[in-house]
Protein backbone atom coordinates (compact mmCIF):
# COMPACT_ATOMS: atom_id res chain seq x y z
CA UNK A 1 0.00 0.00 0.00
CA UNK A 2 1.20 3.49 -0.74
CA UNK A 3 2.11 5.71 2.16
CA UNK A 4 0.87 9.25 2.53
CA UNK A 5 3.75 11.63 2.60
CA UNK A 6 3.82 15.38 2.98
CA UNK A 7 5.14 17.51 0.20
CA UNK A 8 5.62 21.22 0.61
CA UNK A 9 3.61 23.38 -1.83
CA UNK A 10 6.83 25.30 -2.49
CA UNK A 11 8.98 22.23 -3.16
CA UNK A 12 11.14 22.39 -6.24
CA UNK A 13 10.99 26.15 -6.68
CA UNK A 14 14.13 27.81 -7.93
CA UNK A 15 16.15 29.80 -5.44
CA UNK A 16 15.32 33.51 -5.94
CA UNK A 17 18.13 35.79 -7.03
CA UNK A 18 18.76 39.52 -6.86
CA UNK A 19 16.56 40.23 -3.84
CA UNK A 20 17.06 42.93 -1.24
CA UNK A 21 16.07 40.57 1.59
CA UNK A 22 16.38 36.82 1.99
CA UNK A 23 13.26 34.77 1.34
CA UNK A 24 13.02 31.08 2.09
CA UNK A 25 10.50 28.49 3.01
CA UNK A 26 10.33 27.10 6.53
CA UNK A 27 9.51 23.44 6.12
CA UNK A 28 9.16 20.76 8.73
CA UNK A 29 7.18 22.77 11.22
CA UNK A 30 4.25 21.14 12.96
CA UNK A 31 1.15 23.20 13.63
CA UNK A 32 -1.76 22.43 15.92
CA UNK A 33 -4.94 24.47 15.95
CA UNK A 34 -6.31 24.76 19.46
CA UNK A 35 -9.74 26.13 20.23
CA UNK A 36 -11.34 26.61 23.59
CA UNK A 37 -12.70 29.31 25.84
CA UNK A 38 -10.08 31.66 27.22
CA UNK A 39 -12.44 32.31 30.14
CA UNK A 40 -12.49 28.61 31.08
CA UNK A 41 -9.90 28.15 33.86
CA UNK A 42 -9.89 24.34 33.46
CA UNK A 43 -9.11 24.68 29.74
CA UNK A 44 -6.32 27.19 30.29
CA UNK A 45 -4.78 25.04 33.04
CA UNK A 46 -4.93 21.89 30.90
CA UNK A 47 -3.27 23.67 27.97
CA UNK A 48 -0.59 25.05 30.25
CA UNK A 49 0.06 21.61 31.69
CA UNK A 50 0.86 20.19 28.25
CA UNK A 51 2.56 23.17 26.62
CA UNK A 52 4.47 24.42 29.66
CA UNK A 53 3.40 27.96 28.98
CA UNK A 54 0.20 29.97 29.45
CA UNK A 55 -1.83 30.52 26.32
CA UNK A 56 -1.45 34.21 25.47
CA UNK A 57 -4.72 36.04 26.13
CA UNK A 58 -3.59 39.48 25.02
CA UNK A 59 -4.59 39.98 21.37
CA UNK A 60 -1.83 39.64 18.75
CA UNK A 61 0.83 38.25 21.07
CA UNK A 62 2.67 34.95 21.29
CA UNK A 63 4.38 32.85 23.95
CA UNK A 64 7.24 30.36 23.78
CA UNK A 65 8.59 27.59 25.87
CA UNK A 66 11.44 25.42 24.61
CA UNK A 67 10.74 24.48 21.00
CA UNK A 68 7.03 25.22 21.36
CA UNK A 69 5.55 28.53 20.32
CA UNK A 70 1.93 29.56 20.76
CA UNK A 71 0.42 32.24 18.55
CA UNK A 72 -2.77 34.08 19.50
CA UNK A 73 -5.25 33.85 16.62
CA UNK A 74 -8.50 34.83 18.29
CA UNK A 75 -10.07 35.08 21.73
CA UNK A 76 -10.79 31.35 21.50
CA UNK A 77 -8.16 30.12 19.05
CA UNK A 78 -4.43 29.54 19.20
CA UNK A 79 -1.87 28.09 16.80
CA UNK A 80 0.75 25.89 18.43
CA UNK A 81 4.04 25.59 16.58
CA UNK A 82 6.53 22.82 17.12
CA UNK A 83 8.56 20.38 15.13
CA UNK A 84 6.59 18.31 12.62
CA UNK A 85 8.00 15.09 14.04
CA UNK A 86 6.62 15.88 17.49
CA UNK A 87 3.21 17.18 16.37
CA UNK A 88 1.47 13.79 16.72
CA UNK A 89 2.79 13.26 20.21
CA UNK A 90 1.88 16.78 21.30
CA UNK A 91 -1.61 16.46 19.83
CA UNK A 92 -2.18 13.19 21.67
CA UNK A 93 -1.17 14.68 25.01
CA UNK A 94 -3.29 17.78 24.38
CA UNK A 95 -6.34 15.67 23.57
CA UNK A 96 -5.79 13.57 26.66
CA UNK A 97 -5.46 16.64 28.90
CA UNK A 98 -8.54 18.25 27.33
CA UNK A 99 -10.82 15.24 27.86
CA UNK A 100 -14.14 16.43 29.22
CA UNK A 101 -13.39 20.09 28.48
CA UNK A 102 -15.21 22.00 25.73
CA UNK A 103 -12.21 22.35 23.42
CA UNK A 104 -10.78 21.23 20.09
CA UNK A 105 -7.25 20.38 19.01
CA UNK A 106 -6.46 19.50 15.39
CA UNK A 107 -3.20 18.84 13.58
CA UNK A 108 -3.06 21.45 10.79
CA UNK A 109 0.62 21.04 9.89
CA UNK A 110 -0.22 20.63 6.18
CA UNK A 111 -2.68 23.50 6.06
CA UNK A 112 -0.31 26.43 5.74
CA UNK A 113 3.01 27.18 4.06
CA UNK A 114 5.51 29.31 5.93
CA UNK A 115 7.77 31.82 4.22
CA UNK A 116 10.53 33.55 6.13
CA UNK A 117 11.79 37.02 5.31
CA UNK A 118 15.10 38.06 6.74
CA UNK A 119 17.14 41.19 6.44
CA UNK A 120 17.17 44.94 6.65
CA UNK A 121 14.10 46.41 4.98
CA UNK A 122 11.77 43.41 5.15
CA UNK A 123 9.11 45.54 6.86
CA UNK A 124 9.04 47.79 3.83
CA UNK A 125 8.82 44.75 1.53
CA UNK A 126 5.82 43.40 3.46
CA UNK A 127 4.12 46.77 3.54
CA UNK A 128 3.90 46.71 -0.25
CA UNK A 129 1.19 44.08 0.11
CA UNK A 130 -0.38 44.99 3.45
CA UNK A 131 -2.59 47.78 4.74
CA UNK A 132 -0.85 47.72 8.13
CA UNK A 133 1.73 50.15 9.38
CA UNK A 134 4.42 47.60 10.17
CA UNK A 135 6.71 50.35 11.44
CA UNK A 136 4.36 50.84 14.38
CA UNK A 137 5.80 49.80 17.73
CA UNK A 138 3.04 47.19 18.01
CA UNK A 139 4.90 45.02 15.48
CA UNK A 140 7.85 44.18 17.69
CA UNK A 141 9.24 40.66 18.17
CA UNK A 142 6.60 38.43 19.74
CA UNK A 143 3.75 40.08 17.90
CA UNK A 144 1.61 38.01 15.56
CA UNK A 145 -1.55 38.86 13.71
CA UNK A 146 -3.72 37.73 10.88
CA UNK A 147 -3.91 40.19 8.05
CA UNK A 148 -4.72 40.70 4.42
CA UNK A 149 -1.52 40.35 2.44
CA UNK A 150 -1.38 40.60 -1.36
CA UNK A 151 -5.20 40.21 -1.36
CA UNK A 152 -5.07 36.88 0.49
CA UNK A 153 -5.38 35.88 4.13
CA UNK A 154 -2.04 35.62 5.88
CA UNK A 155 -0.69 35.26 9.36
CA UNK A 156 2.25 37.44 10.27
CA UNK A 157 4.68 36.44 12.99
CA UNK A 158 7.41 38.86 14.03
CA UNK A 159 10.22 36.52 15.06
CA UNK A 160 12.95 39.09 15.45
CA UNK A 161 13.29 42.72 14.51
CA UNK A 162 14.14 41.97 10.90
CA UNK A 163 12.90 38.38 10.73
CA UNK A 164 9.27 37.83 9.74
CA UNK A 165 7.37 34.61 9.13
CA UNK A 166 4.36 34.73 6.86
CA UNK A 167 1.86 31.88 7.03
CA UNK A 168 -0.43 31.45 4.06
CA UNK A 169 -2.85 28.69 3.16
CA UNK A 170 -1.00 26.16 1.03
CA UNK A 171 -3.12 26.73 -2.08
CA UNK A 172 -1.96 30.36 -2.02
CA UNK A 173 1.69 29.54 -1.37
CA UNK A 174 2.82 30.10 -4.95
CA UNK A 175 0.98 33.39 -5.18
CA UNK A 176 2.51 34.67 -1.94
CA UNK A 177 5.98 33.45 -2.95
CA UNK A 178 5.82 35.11 -6.38
CA UNK A 179 4.44 38.33 -4.91
CA UNK A 180 7.23 38.41 -2.33
CA UNK A 181 9.94 37.68 -4.87
CA UNK A 182 8.63 40.40 -7.17
CA UNK A 183 8.27 43.07 -4.46
CA UNK A 184 11.60 42.21 -2.83
CA UNK A 185 13.74 42.68 -5.95
CA UNK A 186 16.77 44.75 -5.07
CA UNK A 187 16.07 47.56 -7.59
CA UNK A 188 12.56 47.93 -6.11
CA UNK A 189 13.85 48.51 -2.59
CA UNK A 190 12.01 51.28 -0.78
CA UNK A 191 13.81 54.07 0.99
CA UNK A 192 10.66 55.80 2.08
CA UNK A 193 11.11 55.51 5.78
CA UNK A 194 14.69 56.49 6.32
CA UNK A 195 16.71 59.50 5.27
CA UNK A 196 15.96 59.98 1.60
CA UNK A 197 18.47 60.84 -1.05
CA UNK A 198 17.50 63.90 -2.97
CA UNK A 199 18.28 63.54 -6.68
CA UNK A 200 20.80 66.19 -7.74
Amino acid at each position, binding site marked *: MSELSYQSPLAGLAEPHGLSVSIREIAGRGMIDLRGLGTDAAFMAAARGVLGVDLPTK*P*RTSASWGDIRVLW*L*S*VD*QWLILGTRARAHELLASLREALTGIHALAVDVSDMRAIIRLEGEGCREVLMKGA*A*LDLLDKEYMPGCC*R*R*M*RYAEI*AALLDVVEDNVFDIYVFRSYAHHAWNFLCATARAPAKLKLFGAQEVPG
Partner: protein
Amino acid sequence: MLVVKCPVCGAEGDETDFHAGGQAHVRRPATCDPAHVTDAEQRDYLFIRINPRGLHFERWRCDRGCGKWFHAARDTVTMEFKAFYGITELPPMDVIAQAKGQWAEYFAKRLGAERSRETGA
Protein backbone atom coordinates in the same frame (compact mmCIF):
# COMPACT_ATOMS: atom_id res chain seq x y z
CA MET B 1 -11.53 54.63 3.24
CA LEU B 2 -13.34 53.48 6.35
CA VAL B 3 -11.32 52.89 9.48
CA VAL B 4 -12.91 50.10 11.48
CA LYS B 5 -12.05 48.99 15.01
CA CYS B 6 -13.01 45.56 16.27
CA PRO B 7 -14.47 45.74 19.81
CA VAL B 8 -13.46 42.11 20.47
CA CYS B 9 -9.71 42.16 19.78
CA GLY B 10 -9.12 45.89 19.37
CA ALA B 11 -7.64 45.54 15.87
CA GLU B 12 -7.92 48.70 13.85
CA GLY B 13 -7.67 48.72 10.10
CA ASP B 14 -9.23 49.83 6.87
CA GLU B 15 -12.37 48.17 5.58
CA THR B 16 -10.48 45.62 3.47
CA ASP B 17 -9.41 43.92 6.73
CA PHE B 18 -13.08 43.62 7.69
CA HIS B 19 -16.22 42.26 6.11
CA ALA B 20 -19.51 44.15 6.05
CA GLY B 21 -22.41 41.88 6.99
CA GLY B 22 -25.44 44.02 6.24
CA GLN B 23 -28.05 45.49 8.53
CA ALA B 24 -27.82 44.76 12.24
CA HIS B 25 -30.50 43.57 14.63
CA VAL B 26 -32.50 41.58 12.06
CA ARG B 27 -34.53 38.94 13.85
CA ARG B 28 -35.37 35.59 12.31
CA PRO B 29 -39.03 35.02 13.17
CA ALA B 30 -38.70 31.21 13.17
CA THR B 31 -36.11 31.45 15.95
CA CYS B 32 -38.45 33.49 18.16
CA ASP B 33 -41.68 31.59 17.54
CA PRO B 34 -41.34 28.69 15.06
CA ALA B 35 -45.01 27.72 15.23
CA HIS B 36 -46.43 31.06 14.15
CA VAL B 37 -44.40 32.54 11.30
CA THR B 38 -46.52 34.47 8.84
CA ASP B 39 -45.58 34.97 5.19
CA ALA B 40 -45.31 38.71 5.78
CA GLU B 41 -42.90 38.24 8.66
CA GLN B 42 -40.73 35.86 6.65
CA ARG B 43 -40.75 38.26 3.68
CA ASP B 44 -39.66 41.14 5.91
CA TYR B 45 -36.94 39.00 7.47
CA LEU B 46 -35.51 37.96 4.11
CA PHE B 47 -35.89 41.05 1.95
CA ILE B 48 -36.94 44.21 3.76
CA ARG B 49 -34.07 46.36 5.00
CA ILE B 50 -33.76 49.87 6.37
CA ASN B 51 -31.87 52.20 4.05
CA PRO B 52 -31.51 55.41 6.02
CA ARG B 53 -29.79 58.63 5.17
CA GLY B 54 -27.79 59.25 8.33
CA LEU B 55 -27.24 56.96 11.29
CA HIS B 56 -27.33 53.26 10.41
CA PHE B 57 -26.59 50.08 12.36
CA GLU B 58 -24.63 47.30 10.72
CA ARG B 59 -22.94 43.98 11.30
CA TRP B 60 -19.23 43.67 10.58
CA ARG B 61 -16.75 40.83 10.86
CA CYS B 62 -13.10 41.09 11.92
CA ASP B 63 -12.28 39.12 8.80
CA ARG B 64 -8.48 39.34 8.83
CA GLY B 65 -8.19 39.44 12.60
CA CYS B 66 -9.95 37.54 15.33
CA GLY B 67 -12.75 36.39 13.03
CA LYS B 68 -15.55 37.55 15.31
CA TRP B 69 -18.74 39.33 14.30
CA PHE B 70 -19.60 42.65 15.90
CA HIS B 71 -21.94 45.60 15.46
CA ALA B 72 -21.18 49.11 14.28
CA ALA B 73 -23.15 52.33 14.13
CA ARG B 74 -22.22 54.32 11.04
CA ASP B 75 -23.41 57.55 9.50
CA THR B 76 -24.19 56.84 5.83
CA VAL B 77 -23.69 60.49 4.88
CA THR B 78 -20.36 61.27 6.55
CA MET B 79 -19.20 57.60 6.64
CA GLU B 80 -18.20 58.22 10.24
CA PHE B 81 -18.42 55.34 12.71
CA LYS B 82 -20.26 56.39 15.88
CA ALA B 83 -19.74 53.23 17.91
CA PHE B 84 -18.56 49.62 17.82
CA TYR B 85 -20.28 47.19 20.14
CA GLY B 86 -20.60 43.45 20.78
CA ILE B 87 -22.69 41.14 18.63
CA THR B 88 -25.13 40.39 21.49
CA GLU B 89 -25.32 43.99 22.65
CA LEU B 90 -27.37 47.07 21.94
CA PRO B 91 -25.61 50.29 20.95
CA PRO B 92 -24.58 52.78 23.66
CA MET B 93 -27.56 54.82 24.86
CA ASP B 94 -26.20 58.10 23.52
CA VAL B 95 -26.03 56.59 20.02
CA ILE B 96 -29.54 55.11 20.33
CA ALA B 97 -30.73 58.61 21.21
CA GLN B 98 -29.41 59.88 17.86
CA ALA B 99 -31.33 57.27 15.85
CA LYS B 100 -34.10 58.58 13.62
CA GLY B 101 -37.07 57.18 11.71
CA GLN B 102 -37.33 53.40 11.51
CA TRP B 103 -34.29 52.87 13.72
CA ALA B 104 -35.74 55.11 16.44
CA GLU B 105 -38.98 53.09 16.27
CA TYR B 106 -37.04 49.84 16.42
CA PHE B 107 -35.00 50.80 19.48
CA ALA B 108 -38.03 52.26 21.28
CA LYS B 109 -39.82 48.93 20.79
CA ARG B 110 -36.77 46.87 21.73
CA LEU B 111 -35.98 48.86 24.87
CA GLY B 112 -39.66 48.83 25.87
CA ALA B 113 -39.75 45.02 25.53
CA GLU B 114 -36.57 44.68 27.61
CA ARG B 115 -37.90 46.98 30.31
CA SER B 116 -41.15 45.04 30.60
CA ARG B 117 -39.18 41.76 30.76
CA GLU B 118 -37.08 43.16 33.63
CA THR B 119 -40.09 44.32 35.60
CA GLY B 120 -41.80 40.99 34.91
CA ALA B 121 -44.85 42.63 33.40
